[in-house]
Structure formats: C-alpha cells, structure tokens
C-alpha cells in the first residue's frame, strides 16, 4: 500500500479515545438548579457569600448578555448550544476548608491521578532540578465551580503575594477586586465573556505588590467533573510596579458523550516595569473518534500592559477541546511595553481550533512578537486568527509575526487569517507564514536511520515546535513535549 494511502488509513483509525484523563470522580456535589436565570445568579452569589456590589455586577452582566448574540465568525461548526441545559454551579459537598486535611480524599486522589499531588507539593516543597536547586510551584486546584485547595499560601503571604481563589478575594480584598475586575475585559466585551461575568464560579486571584518578584511559579489546575456542567472560571492577575510573576494553568475533564461548556475569562494587569508570564497547557477532553462529546472551549484572555516598560507574555500548548475559540491578547498601552504570544495548537480527530492573538499597540515604541505553530492531523481544522494594530499615537510600534502550520495526513486543514492595521506611518510590522506537510521523504530519511514511524514523527514535530516549547517554564516543558506525542499518537502510518 502506498505510504500516503497508509497514512490516510491510519488517520481514519485514529483513536482519540486514548485520552488519559477521562476518568470521573464519584463524589457528591451540590448544584444550582439547571438553567440560567436571575435566580441562578443569586444562588451562585449567595453560595459564595458575596457582597451586594458583586451580585449587582453579575446581574448587570446578565441583563447585557440577554441582548447579545453568539458570535459566528470563527471557523468552527457545532450544534446550537442550549444555555438552559447546563448547570451553572456545582461544588463538592464538603467545602470551605482550612487545610488540605479537610479536602475530600476522593478529590485529592483525582489530582494525584492527574499528576498533581497537592499534599506532596506542600510536604516535599517541590521537585529537585538538574542543577540541584529546588523549584517550587504553588497550586490552586479548582474542581467544577469551586477552588478546593491552594498550596503554599503562607509562604507566599510572607513575600506579600496574594494567591487565592477569586471568591475569597472578593470578600478579603474587595478594594483590589473592585479596582481591577472587568478593567481589561469589560462585562460587555463579548457574548462568552459577558456570560462569564454573570455566572463565574471560581478561579484564581493573584496580586504581586510593587517591586516583588514572586518567589515561586503559581499554577491553577482546572477540572470539570460534573455532567452537563459549565465551568466559568475567572482569573485576575495584577503585577504592581516592577513586580514579576509566572503563572501556569492546566485543565482536564472526564470523557462524556455530551459537550461540556467552558467559558473562562482571564485578565492580566501589568503596571510600570512589571512582567507577567502566563502559560497554559490546555488538555480538555477533545471528544471521541467520531467527534462525539468533548469540551466547548470559549475563552477570553487579555493582558493590559498598563504601565510603561511593562511586559506580558502568553505561552500556550493547546491539545484538547472539541471546539477552541481563544485569542489571548495584549493591550500595549504603556510606552515601550512589550507583548508576546507563543502558541502550539494541535488538533487531531474531529477537533476544531480557531485561535490566535490580538496585539493592540497604543503606546509609543511598543513591541510585540507572535510565534504560532499549528499542527493539524486526522480530520481536524486548525485556524490561526490574529490581529495586529497600531493606533495613531503608537509611534515606532513594531511587530514580528511568524505563523507556521504543519499538516499530518490529507483530511485536515490549516488556515491562517492575519489582520494587520497600521494607523501611523512609523509602525513596522513583519509577517511570515508557512504551511508544510510532514513529507514522506522526511519520514523515510528518519526511518532509514533506524527510527520507528512514531519516533520519526515525534522528532519532526518536536523540531517544528521547538521555538515555542523553549518559552515554557522548565517544569512544564517536558510535560508538554510528552503531551504533544500523545496527542499525535496513531496519526501516521
């Protein structure tokens, strides 16, 4: 059988069901009544003991949402979502805990299975690195609609860093939340962000005070467990003047026939000379071989380089979800601020990815850099959609964009849709794009040297994504590399 034909056959047999994280945690949960109404929102707000202003904020967003329409411009197809058919709040029965000892052991086991041993995290204080230094990661674990545990809280507190579930921050640091929540992604921003503003459940809140370099990596691990449940996390990270923080999020879900809904909002604020590095390893359940089930992932992520010389960097490794609609962006407001977007988006089976970034240059001499690597296999569609714009006053704005797509097999598609707008003549924008196929010649060359088809593909793909993998914190680069080979298993003959 000719190789190309063989590849096609293999791709047809692709078993997306090899999703490793597809188990379900049997646990009692408390849910809001199904569907969405003012009552649902009041229920959520009451569950979280929110102050009146927070409830009012939510209700206003809800009113706004009722007048909005779901966007249709992305290159994704999915059945109409019945928003009344979801649960908007689900929490494990025993919550509001003082220490890890009070967390349901079933939940701790879940995170352990996922490779995130919360308990050991605290006891061992991190893993040893090659050079003998200890690197540590503080974890906030979000299970369905609530945060179940946050590690290293005390130690971070000593450094002045606030890292807690946003539901707690609303009560404990209302002045900060009021000041920054919705200041980057307004409640009226877009259909999914507005929905999130009305019903957001939990997520992380980070505040790094002036001049502080956060002493460890911060990480949030999201898990959707409950059936028919939407997860609407809200994350808000503020780096005050001269502060630095590196933050990582990971996400998984059980395998289900129905589509679960995930509509998150992430807001980042960097003041003068501050730097935020935000990394995502997204591995939501992608659906089965027939394209049944999987997470609908509609996410609004935006960073505001509000201060001069501030820097925000997004790095993402996207391998999961049935539908991905996601454009982590930077508003380059401060003069000499810098925005970066490094992305690896992998689609296999019937996955549809429409992802990219927006770099909005408002300040003088602002710089942005976009490196996007899309890999499409199976019958998937993978679109890069990006906007780079320079405002009239953004003198000397500079952007460099590089979008590469790699196709594996011949039933998949890669699409690149760049929008470039320069409203002043001193802006310099560069755009490079390539689309290539893993050629039979390349595979044969590797195999002639002794590598199996799978080893050869992994080597070629890792070479393709190398520039982006290097941007990930070291602790996660290896994990991401493994994830990439798992996602592509069975995609070549």
């Amino acid at each position: 059988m000719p190789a190309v034909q063989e590849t096609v056959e293999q791709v047809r047999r692709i078993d997306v069901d090899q999703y490793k994280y597809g188990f379900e945690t049997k646990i009692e949960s408390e849910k809001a009544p199904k569907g969405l109404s003012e009552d649902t929102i009041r229920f959520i707000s009451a569950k979280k003991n929110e102050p009146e202003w927070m409830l009012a904020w939510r209700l206003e967003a809800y009113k706004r949402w009722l007048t909005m329409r779901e966007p249709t411009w992305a290159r994704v197809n999915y059945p109409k979502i019945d928003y009344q058919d979801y649960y908007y709040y689900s929490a494990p029965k025993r919550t509001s805990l003082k220490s890890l000892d009070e967390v349901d052991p079933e939940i701790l086991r879940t995170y352990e299975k996922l490779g995130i041993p919360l308990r050991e995290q605290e006891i061992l204080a991190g893993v040893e690195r090659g050079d003998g230094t200890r690197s540590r990661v503080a974890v906030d674990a979000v299970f369905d609609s609530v945060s179940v545990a946050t590690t290293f809280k005390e130690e971070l507190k000593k450094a002045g860093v606030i890292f807690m579930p946003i539901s707690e921050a609303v009560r404990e640091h209302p002045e900060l939340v009021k000041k920054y929540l919705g200041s980057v992604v307004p409640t009226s921003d877009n259909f999914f962000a507005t929905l999130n503003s009305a019903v957001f459940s939990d997520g992380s809140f980070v505040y790094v005070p002036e001049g502080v370099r956060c002493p460890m990596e911060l990480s949030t691990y999201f898990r959707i467990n409950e059936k028919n449940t939407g997860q609407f996390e809200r994350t808000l990270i503020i780096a005050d003047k001269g502060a630095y923080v590196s933050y990582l999020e990971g996400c998984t879900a059980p395998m289900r026939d129905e589509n679960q809904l995930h509509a998150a909002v992430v807001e980042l604020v960097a003041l003068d000379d501050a730097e935020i590095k935000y990394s995502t390893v997204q591995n939501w359940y992608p659906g089965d071989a027939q394209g049944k089930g999987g997470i609908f992932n509609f996410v609004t992520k935006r960073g505001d380089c509000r201060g001069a010389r501030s820097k925000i960097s997004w790095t993402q490794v996207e391998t999961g979800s049935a539908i991905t609609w996601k454009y982590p962006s930077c508003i380059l407001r401060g003069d000499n601020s810098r925005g970066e977007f490094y992305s690896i988006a992998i689609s296999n089976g019937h996955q549809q990815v429409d992802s990219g970034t927006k770099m909005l240059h408002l300040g003088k001499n602002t710089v942005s850099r976009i490196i996007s690597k899309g890999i499409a296999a199976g019958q998937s569609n993978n679109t890069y959609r990006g906007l780079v714009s320079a405002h009239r006053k953004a003198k000397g704005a500079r952007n460099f964009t590089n979008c590469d797509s790699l196709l594996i097999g011949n039933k998949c598609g890669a699409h690149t849709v760049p929008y470039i707008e320069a409203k002043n003549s001193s802006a310099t924008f560069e755009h490079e794009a390539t689309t290539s196929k893993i050629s039979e010649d390349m595979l044969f060359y590797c195999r002639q040297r002794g590598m199996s088809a799978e080893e050869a593909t992994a080597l070629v793909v890792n070479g393709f994504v190398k520039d982006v993998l290097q941007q990930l914190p070291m602790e996660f680069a290896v994990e991401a590399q493994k994830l990439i080979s798992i996602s592509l298993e069975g995609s070549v003959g």
Partner: protein
Amino acid sequence: MSFLEVKNLHVEVEDKKILNGLTLSVEKGQVAAIMGPNGSGKSTLAYVLAGKDNYKVTEGEVLLNGKNILDMAPDERAAKGVFLAFQYPVEVPGVATMTFLRTALNAQRKTRGEAEFSTPEFMKLVRDTAAHLGISQEMLRRAVNVGFSGGEKKRNEILQMAVLQPTLAVLDETDSGLDIDALKIVAEGVNRLRSPERSMVVITHYQRLLNFIVPDVVHVMAKGKVVKSGGKDLALELEAKGYAQFADEAA
C-alpha cells in the same frame, strides 16, 4: 553465499517498470561500484534496498546475510545494518544534528536489544568522527541539513554512516554536486570505513569518484539490470567509451 544477494529483482514505480530482473551479489567486506547511464535504475536499486514506499517489487528477492529483507520496514532494515547515504539528504528543521544522530543510534540499538549509549560516550564518539570529516561542533548543533552547503550535506551523510556503523552501506551518487576538495574529504571518510565486516555499494554516474574510492568490482547497469561486471578497469573503459555500447545489449 554472498552477504548481499539480489535475485531477479523486478520493480515498478507508479506502474512504470524500472528494474527488470536485476541480479547482483556483493561479498562481505567488498566495495562494489555500480555505474550506468541516467535512468538505468541505479537510484531505484538504492531505495528498494533501503525499503522506500511506492517501490513495488513484483518479482525476485533481496537476501541480506541469507535473510529476505523485502518485507521489513525501513527501520528494521536499518537495525540489521542497512545504511543509505542519500543523493539528496533531507532537511529536518528544528532538530539538531546531534539529537538526530543520537535518536537514530539509540533507536537502532533498542531494536537490536542493546543498551543505549550514555551521553558522554556518545558525545565522544561523534566528536572524534566529526573531526575527521571537518565537521565543527557548531554544525552539529545546527538543524539537520538546514542551510548546509552541498558538501556539508554529503559529509553529514558520511558522519551518520560512521556513527551508525552499518554492515551494508549504499552510497547513492555521493559525488554529485561536490567540487574536487569536498570529494576528497568525503572519499577519505568512506575509505576510513572500509572493513572486512562492511560491504559497500557505491553508485555513481562518473568514474571520477572511483579514483578516490577504489572498488573491488564494478557492475554496469542499463535498462534495469546488470549488463556487465568486471574489475576496477571496467570503470576506465566506460569513461573512454561511454555508455552507448550497452544500449543494445539490454534491449
């Protein structure tokens, strides 16, 4: 029994017959040159030996050390000692030459049930070999064949051969695109690898290469089969008379 025995090999590519009952024996430790005009099937023979897809064997067999290798995948053949120095070495962007070599060597060793090389052992092996071929450390860090000159690509092929230590090395037009200085370096690299344990099939269009890699035997191919065999003088005779004399014999 010869180390490599090709018996009555018939091969089609996209329904076009390229090899027409080719028969060839190469002894252990022998360097056999294969010459012939363009389109005589020399490169096809190289690819079929290495197991490239889309080359359909309709008749005949290829025995390596008495075992038929035609049903084996390319990587299985590689682990059994088959190496092909490509006429057009392929670029692998983003993969450092060092990483590529190491992945290849360890993959072969794994298939053969041998232990993987340790990093220091491997680094030393590659460095020593690379130095002989005038390959710098910087070149080993660069992505495989990306931005390499023609000469660098061919030297890289010989480096891989030296590291992988095959028992059957097939060199497909290794001289093409090389100036005389580059040709000498490559030829020296090949000569250093001559061994009673290693057979070589040196495919070339021109006699020039054989001044530097002196073959034990010369086979002439035309229209998909071997039409004449002889000693190294046969190459000189071809250089003088050209390939035209074989046009009728093969018909």
